[in-house]
């Protein structure tokens, strides 16, 4: 699995949304165990999502 493919295909986001088929999910996980850059990207999105979930009401109520 190539890094370019990860960035262009938004695989990281699909992975975090549980939208990958099992084989692609396995390949993706092997990739992030070997690629620090992609691991940083996935963890950044994962942490962002968690923090945004905590602030959901605050953000929605401001609108």
């Amino acid at each position, binding site marked *: 699995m190539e890094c370019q493919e990860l960035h262009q295909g938004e695989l990281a986001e699909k992975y975090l949304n549980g939208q990958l088929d099992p084989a692609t999910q396995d390949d993706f996980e092997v990739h992030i*165990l070997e690629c620090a850059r992609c691991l940083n990207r996935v963890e950044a999105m994962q942490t962002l999502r968690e923090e945004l979930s905590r602030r959901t009401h605050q953000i*929605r109520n401001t609108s």
Partner: protein
Amino acid sequence: MPGEPIVAPATIQPEGTLAQRILAGDPSAEEDLVNAYSRGVFVIAVARIRDRDAARDLVQEVFIAVLKALRKGQLRESDKLTAFVQGTARNLINNYLRARANCAECELDLEAYGSDPVEELESLERQRLVRRELETLSFTDQQILLLSLVDGHSLTEVAQKLNLSHDAVRARKSRVVRKITKKFARMSQK
């Protein structure tokens, strides 16, 4: 990704060498294995379980299982170490999820495994960093991220909801994710 700091790969040496050193009884190789893979296994566990505390415990369980197998020489192709770590993590996480589904009130006995305090501190520091970054974002950027990352809307849907162009939404979202990714990379280099 142009402009991003170059970061060391997660594996610090050829996979085969590491597996062979562990089989030969080299204790520093076991530490190298944990250092190389623990953060990635934690991210995988959080992604699959969505519970940081349980994920932290499971990471310990994964390494106990991987090290036991490697000491016994159960990895037949030593250059497949990363896939072996991922497969072990996936199986243990699936076991955990099945047990949790079958017995919602039962707590799995994972307390026996202590978590890595350094890894835990780094994880908390990354959470704090994201909180700080969110505080600095415009309200529109926060809405874009919420609609996209939490609610799961496509960029086109987000653009329609916020009356913005698709390109503007993509650029704003991408800028925030890239900025935090770069900061995570710098933190992991320290």
